[in-house]
């Protein structure tokens, strides 16, 4: 079974990464606890050590070497442990030792961790979504995380996490993107953004953009990334309006959106912004560069 291999290789990888970063005594503690979690009938060790991991591991980044990064991607496509901290990794290591042959029992215990988690524990639990066994059972949990008002929790599901793109249905996915825009999160950190773009989402986002323009508020430039492929005769007016904005990031976004459209008028609009097109071709302007430069609430 492919899953089985993956399930033992990933904890091993996490431990190797931590070995270069943490104290020997912390690592000994972690290994002993995980061993106990793997065989324990009552879940006391899991619950206590999951919390207490904060006493042994810091929130400093994982600082991975290139070879380690490569291995991580080979173990799990699109996984981004470079966005994890050491405490996230230690907690994932513990939870991944939970016996999972009985999926109902396993999920019940995992739910208990989620239901009683503090802010940082929830971050760790949600970041690990893409690594748990029984991936198909976790979509409601991911959707629940996306309902959180704690940005740190929302981000753990929505950003740099391959789980949502792989498992959420269209409604839940669109909710993720819409809320990310509402919370002004950096969209370029959402994995699978272009692959999961859809006409329904584009329509909803255009409504949102109109709402903001009516209220004399700015529209987050990355929003247009989701609209580009769905430019048509009725909404091209909005792209024209976007291209007339003063903010250079919005104009860049307009040109990028037009480049992802096959609508003839969109091609024409690109030609009216030759200098931006050149910057795009040189790699100086991209959705990522726009996302990085954008300061929310301006």
């Amino acid at each position, binding site marked *: 079974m492919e899953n089985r291999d993956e399930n033992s290789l990933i904890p091993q990888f996490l431990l190797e990464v931590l070995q270069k970063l943490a104290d020997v005594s912390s690592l000994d503690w972690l290994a002993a606890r995980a061993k106990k979690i793997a065989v324990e009938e009552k879940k*006391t060790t899991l619950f*206590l050590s999951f*919390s207490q991991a904060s*006493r042994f591991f810091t929130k400093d980044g994982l600082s991975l070497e290139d070879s380690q990064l490569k291995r991580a991607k080979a173990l799990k496509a699109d996984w981004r442990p470079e966005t994890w901290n050491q405490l996230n990794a230690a907690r994932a290591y513990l939870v991944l030792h939970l016996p999972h042959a009985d999926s109902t029992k396993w999920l019940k215990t995992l739910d208990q961790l989620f*239901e009683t988690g503090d*802010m940082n524990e929830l971050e760790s639990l949600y970041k690990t979504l893409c690594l748990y066994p029984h991936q198909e059972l976790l979509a409601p949990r991911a959707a629940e995380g996306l309902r959180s008002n*704690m*940005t740190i929790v929302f981000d753990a599901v929505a950003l740099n996490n391959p789980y949502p793109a792989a498992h959420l249905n269209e409604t839940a996915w669109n909710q993720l993107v819409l809320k990310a825009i509402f919370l002004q999160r950096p969209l370029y950190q959402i994995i699978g953004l272009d692959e999961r773009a859809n006409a329904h989402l584009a329509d909803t986002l255009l409504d949102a953009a109109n709402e903001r323009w009516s209220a004399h508020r700015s529209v987050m430039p990355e929003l247009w990334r989701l609209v580009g492929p769905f430019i048509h005769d009725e909404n091209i007016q909005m792209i024209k309006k976007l291209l007339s904005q003063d903010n250079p990031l919005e104009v860049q976004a307009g040109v990028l959106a037009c480049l992802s459209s096959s609508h003839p008028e969109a091609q024409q609009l690109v030609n009216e912004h030759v200098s931006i097109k050149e910057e795009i071709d040189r790699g100086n302007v991209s959705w990522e560069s726009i996302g990085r430069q954008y300061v929310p609430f301006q």
Partner: protein
Amino acid sequence: MYIDPHIHMTSRTTDDYEAMKKAGIVAIIEPAFWLGQPRTQVGSFQDYFSSLVGWERFRAKQFGIVHYCTIGLNSKEANNVALSEQVMDLLPLYVGKEGVVAIGEIGYDDQTEAEDRFFRAQLELAKEVNLPVMIHTPHRDKKKGTSKSMDVSLEHGLEPHQVVIDHNNEETVKEVLDRGFWAAFTIYPHSKMGSERMVEVVKKYGPERIIVDSSADWGVSDPLSVPKTANLMRERGVPEEHIHLTCYQNALTVYGQSGQFKEEDWLNRSAIDQTELSDGNSVLRGGQTPVVEDKSSNIVKN
């Protein structure tokens, strides 16, 4: 810099957080307590405890205040024995979490048998997980209740330096200090202490092991009790060092024994960045300009 080591922020508004920050409060401890009416389901306790380590912590952070909490089954609700037994099973899930600085507030209310049972069980828990204890002393029959709280704490093997006796007054303070416990005073209009009486207590007993807090909650209370009392002490000639001890350092020393309450948490805290939030259901509503604090100045812009 002040610490309010006893305040129930779940009942307070964002205006309070802003005012507290402006008045110099850098860190707060929110003890688990009752909510004004008794809970009837264990799930209500679970969600309450989760909010103390989750949402409320996040909310405080947005205003530049570091939020800690204590976890415990309060004495009023301990009288529902069947429910309390379930809550006791829940406590181990929370007491080991980050930022949980004590078991509390626990102790006596009506001083019933059930209260006694769960008070003792939680003292044992505190000992097991090596956390300090925050004790709520009763409103009625206070003097005897306070003595008994200390007797029982010692009986269960806790050291006086691990235990804070809260809601003291002129009648209880001497015994608490004489026996080596920490004496906290709640500056709460009408029912507990006033600032002026507090100044006299500090003048009379000195600053050692005395702690000032607000216990502000859903009743008529004042989240600025600590800075206001500190200012009054200053006006009335109490030495600055004594103000520092009673309104900051003593709380840090006793709850710091948990290993979860460190000065560096607020001295090195990340600058306030309300752009982290802004959801329609969050603390900022559409159209409001978020506060992004400039670390180079001491002024928090509005």
